[in-house]
């Protein structure tokens, strides 16, 4: 599923609001379940890496995929969150797992 669709988007920039795709394909997926469907902000671009979902099956993982550091607010992830309002979580997520979050665009 994720591997066959090619690049999902033209790329994001720091500050862009994004949503993690709510998808549950089998395989060596590096996007944690708890973030699927959640909205965050691109914090930075981590670089380009061979696709781990492909590497896991002995393929070359090319073309490389862009990896982003995505920042989430804890209160957006967990309704019962007990900590401070500014508490955050930063996770590395591949581009083909991210959609532009049109609802939260500035």
């Amino acid at each position, binding site marked *: 599923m994720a591997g066959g669709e090619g690049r999902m988007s033209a790329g994001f920039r720091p500050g862009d609001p994004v949503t993690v795709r709510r998808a549950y394909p089998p395989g060596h997926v590096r996007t*944690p379940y708890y973030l699927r469907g959640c909205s965050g902000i691109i914090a930075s671009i*981590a670089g380009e890496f061979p696709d781990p979902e492909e590497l896991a099956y002995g393929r070359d993982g090319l073309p490389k995929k862009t990896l982003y550091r995505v920042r989430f607010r804890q209160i957006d*992830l967990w309704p019962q969150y007990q900590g401070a309002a500014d*508490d955050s*979580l*930063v996770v590395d997520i591949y581009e083909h797992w991210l959609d532009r979050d049109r609802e939260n665009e500035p």
Partner: protein
Amino acid sequence: MSGHHDHDHSHPTQPDVEDQPFEYYQIMAEAVGELLIEKGVFTAAELRKTVESIDARSPADGAKVVARAWLDPTFKERLLEDANAAAGELGIDAGAIPVRVVENTADVHNVICCTLCSCYPRLLLGLPPDWYKARAFRSRVVREPRAVLKEFGTMIPDDVEVCVHDSTADLRYMVLPRRPDGTDGLSETELAALVTRDCMIGTAVPGG
């Protein structure tokens, strides 16, 4: 074995390695290792050398990096920009996987984890502690980090953001802790001694 001396009470038996069944992947790893040696891809001595070099890594390497960053602001800049290259300046090989150093400040306290497996900056900190790999830590630290930190004896004030870094993919993270007050005049070696493993995971603070 127990029971080789006379007692009127028993001691718990120290479990032997063989008390646990060998698991599928342990057998697989042994078999693949033996095959690669047999095929001449590497020798048993090379394999042993690699394992020994991984085992020899320790948090002392990370602590050296932290102490230098506390003393030399330009080194700190380079460390935050490219940790692998900066560690290399100190003769520490941080490996091929990019390491990102996240800096604790008056406003942000960072904690690292890996919810999917146990990604860890092994070349700077050595092997991860068992609790880092445990489901309890991995699942709780992303949703109640302050409660987890409190169990480590680390209280972060509410006006300081707690930022958890879940290393899911191709990067590794290490925390650059804040230099404690009252450490002016300490040497680099003395400063490094304050930096424990947990400080670089983010579950502790130096001198805390």
